[in-house]
């Protein structure tokens, strides 16, 4: 006889007065049907998940298993996008798993103020991501020491050694200069985009190994826009691109406002 499943509750996000009925066709991270938990005037969108896979040990295994991790995060994101279409939604970070609905209710009650403010902050707004890359100059091949001209006695001529070092220094400073230019353009671009948005955030660059990309990621920013201002923002990014000719610019969006759920003092 099969063991009964021990279920936990996975939280996808929090909104206000969300009806689960339109989510009937959407499945959660464990293939489960989505449902809601209401408390303190807030609604959490949740799903019941098997703790064998989504409890502490199961999660730790999954986070270390790339295909499983990818499936989980993509599904979590898809659910948040589906819920966002129904109303303002504050995405939950992965993982957020409770033993039962009562735990979720307690969370909503205890954090009612913060959650309500966050819902308000994302209401009618979208996030757009802008990443910019600089192109490092090709690395010149180092001089072959065997080809350094030598004196009759076989020792390298000092003048040639100096020339070699000068070459290396020139290559390093060309690289530094390219990087400085890219960073300056990225800083200018970010400032301009912040002025076009309600709020902006600067994030750690994604690691170069993420895409096998040889370029420098010099900007990884998020910008919060009113829904109806998104078209104008896209146009702004396109318009600004030529004046940042040393950057390759990528625009992603619209995203549910993951990057703007926490208040930041003095945010633009």
């Amino acid at each position, binding site marked *: 006889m099969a063991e009964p499943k021990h279920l936990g509750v996975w*939280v996808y996000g929090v909104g206000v007065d969300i009806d689960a009925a339109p989510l009937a066709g959407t499945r959660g991270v464990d293939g489960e049907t989505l449902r809601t938990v209401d408390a303190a005037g807030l609604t959490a969108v949740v799903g019941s998940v098997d703790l064998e896979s989504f409890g502490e040990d199961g999660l730790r295994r999954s*986070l270390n298993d790339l295909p499983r991790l990818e499936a989980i995060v*993509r599904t979590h994101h898809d659910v948040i996008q589906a819920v966002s279409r129904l109303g303002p939604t504050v995405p939950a970070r992965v993982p957020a798993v409770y033993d039962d609905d009562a735990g979720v209710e307690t969370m909503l009650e205890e954090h009612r103020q913060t959650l309500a403010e966050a819902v308000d902050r994302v209401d009618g707004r979208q996030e757009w991501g802008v990443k910019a890359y600089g192109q490092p100059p090709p690395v010149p091949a180092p001089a072959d020491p065997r080809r350094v001209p030598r004196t009759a006695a076989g020792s390298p001529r000092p003048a040639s050694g100096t020339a070699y070092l000068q070459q290396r220094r020139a290559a390093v400073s060309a690289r530094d200069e390219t990087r400085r230019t890219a*960073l300056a353009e990225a800083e200018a671009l970010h400032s301009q985009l912040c002025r076009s948005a309600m709020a902006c955030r600067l*994030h*750690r660059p994604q690691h170069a*190994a993420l895409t096998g990309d040889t370029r420098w990621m010099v900007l990884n920013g998020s910008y919060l826009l009113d829904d109806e201002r998104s078209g104008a923002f896209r146009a702004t990014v396109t318009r600004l691109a030529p004046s940042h000719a040393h950057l390759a610019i990528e625009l992603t969006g619209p995203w549910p406002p993951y990057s703007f759920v926490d208040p930041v003092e003095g945010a633009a």
Partner: protein
Amino acid sequence: MTVGAQAVNPSTAPVGTAGHTSTNLGDILERVLDRGLVIVGDIRVSLLDIELLTIKLRLLVASVDTARELGIDWWEHDPWLTSSARPSIEDGPAARRPSRAVGGERTALPEAAAEAEFDG
């Protein structure tokens, strides 16, 4: 609704990138794992575990072999990424500071990260 990556200025189109419409996993990972509301549930995987896993997994998302073929292996020497790594002689102190813009802090541009990526 997918979140496509749009190259804004194709004249500087990235090396080795095909135009794609599916959402980049790295873009999803950094949002789902690093941003969004921090709700501490009953089931805990320690945050330190997650932080380290997040970093490690970001590296794994792309083929690490591909990165190495391109001569990119700086993460193996970056103490921020691997506690067992030792800083190399040519790295100045500034190169070792990670940028701190996780989850919404406004901070300076990632000069440190950019510097850390390539040897001079």
